[in-house]
């Protein structure tokens, strides 16, 4: 008994850090579409970064809290309200038993993350709570479903929850590496990929995002199946591309012409249909540095939030 879904959203699922180690059996890790935002939400409430969160997109569920909870929202701005009052992103909020959280129109981004102090405690399959819709591991949340969490040390003063995450600035481009089949492309096509804009189409889901852009040739030749992963940009017959996302298949037979860097996959996932962007090709060292920088930011955020929560608990005395 903790949170009850009183109205289902379109695609609300529980995601933790992911289910790793099973790719050789055809099972990819799944996990959040924007792992960075999920980690921010978790850090704000003192959770481990990979704790289970609720991932929502527009239109999102209506949630009634059946017991008090310390929550935080990060990622997309879906105009969250609690009992009619604005529930802002990137800061903790203390909710009471009976509080109802609703979401309105999509204002920015696509995937919104709700973290609750203690993390959600749902069914674990193969060591993870991450829903993998394509593999039928877990499912979209439906009306009447309940999300359990463990409440401890919630005797907090709401007015003292003053911390918030100020997010690092974002690069205007989506950085990527050249893919294993980059060499199959003509010079003109390679140039087009690195200089022209691409549009996010409506054909996007947790498996992959279809793009619209300058037609690239070379996608018609059938290749032997080979491993792919999140961020892999596949060239489809017909000249358009698809970027694989959280619930990607573990192998594929299309040319892998690029790979979005780990640090930017979440940002790409947050681009809505109709949005345009450009790729920027960088090298592996650059990609690693950006990921480590992002992880450093998250570690600092987690540390500082933990200290603030700790000091609040200490203030209450014993």
């Amino acid at each position: 008994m903790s949170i009850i879904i009183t109205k289902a959203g379109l695609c609300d699922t529980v995601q933790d850090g992911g289910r790793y180690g099973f790719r050789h059996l055809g099972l990819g890790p799944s996990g959040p579409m924007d792992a960075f935002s999920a980690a921010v939400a978790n850090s704000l409430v003192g959770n481990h970064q990979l704790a289970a969160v609720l991932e929502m997109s527009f239109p999102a569920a209506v949630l009634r809290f059946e017991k008090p909870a310390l929550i935080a929202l990060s990622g997309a701005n879906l105009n969250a309200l609690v009992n009619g009052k604005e529930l802002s992103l990137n800061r903790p909020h203390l909710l009471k038993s009976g509080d109802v959280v609703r979401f309105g129109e999509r204002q920015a981004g696509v995937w919104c993350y709700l973290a609750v102090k203690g993390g959600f405690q749902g069914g674990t399959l193969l060591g993870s709570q991450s829903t993998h819709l394509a593999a039928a591991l877990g499912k979209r949340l439906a009306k009447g479903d309940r999300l359990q969490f463990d409440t401890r040390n919630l005797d907090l003063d709401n007015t003292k929850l003053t911390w918030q995450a100020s997010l690092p600035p974002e690069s205007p481009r989506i950085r990527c590496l050249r893919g294993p089949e980059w060499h199959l492309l003509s010079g003109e096509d390679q140039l087009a990929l690195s200089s022209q804009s691409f549009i996010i189409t409506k054909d996007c889901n947790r498996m992959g995002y279809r793009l619209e852009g300058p037609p690239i040739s070379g996608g018609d030749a059938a290749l032997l199946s080979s491993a792919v992963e999140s961020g892999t940009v596949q060239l489809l017959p017909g000249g358009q591309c698809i970027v694989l996302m959280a619930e990607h298949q573990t192998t594929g037979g299309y040319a892998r012409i690029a790979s979005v860097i780990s640090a930017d996959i979440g940002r790409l996932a947050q681009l809505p249909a109709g949005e345009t962007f450009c790729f920027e090709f960088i090298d592996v060292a650059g990609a690693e540095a950006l990921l480590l920088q992002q992880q450093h930011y998250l570690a600092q955020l987690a540390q500082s939030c933990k200290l603030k929560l700790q000091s609040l608990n200490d203030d209450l005395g014993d």
Partner: protein
Amino acid sequence: MYFQQVSAFPFTIKHLSDRALILQWPAGDMSHELSNEILAWYHALLPLKGDLITDLVPAYNSLAVFYSIHKLGNTHKTAADALMELAGALPTPAATGIEGKTVHIPVCYEPSVAPDLERLAAEKNISIEEIIALHSGPRYRVYFLGFLPGFAYLGKLPAALQVNRHEVPRQRVPAGAVAIAGYQTAVYPLESPGGWWLIGKTPLPMTDFTNPDFCRLQPGDSVIFKPISLDEYHHYKGGAV
């Protein structure tokens, strides 16, 4: 480069992503010899999984090696260099060899459970009995798993049964469908869309997610299909993964 010196099959190492390398052998047809090589590397690297290496994905002519960027960071090496240093300490792939079990999969080859069986017979101008004999004859190799959890790519299908995928894939292929395409055969472990020809059905579950070893088939295993009657299919019991 160490690998290339000892390998009879020269390959390149590229980045699949900023978290994974891919060992890529030249493109060609599916071959048992190349598969032996890839699976030998797969088995040789498997004991290292859980530390620097987080996952290994073999395929027809490649082996993807997923690694932990944190563990790598401690060494100040590039991923490719770190991997090759690790490999340098391993026994050579030829010495490691392939490990694998043989799995018998009961299959009912009846039109009522296999919607493409009669069409295939007409297409190839052979009888259903001949299809059954051809399909259930070989000992197939599990080249790798992909596409779906528990979907094992088996080869090599006899040339007489070779067909291209359907132009328009089915929206729903049922779990347990035994299918063929190209030189491959497979069992669909879950209901899913699919473009392969459905020539049989097995009552044996291919996956069991309550079990950490949730797949009946692993890379390098062998599969033999055993024809069963429609009656046996409907009354089949047992067969835990």
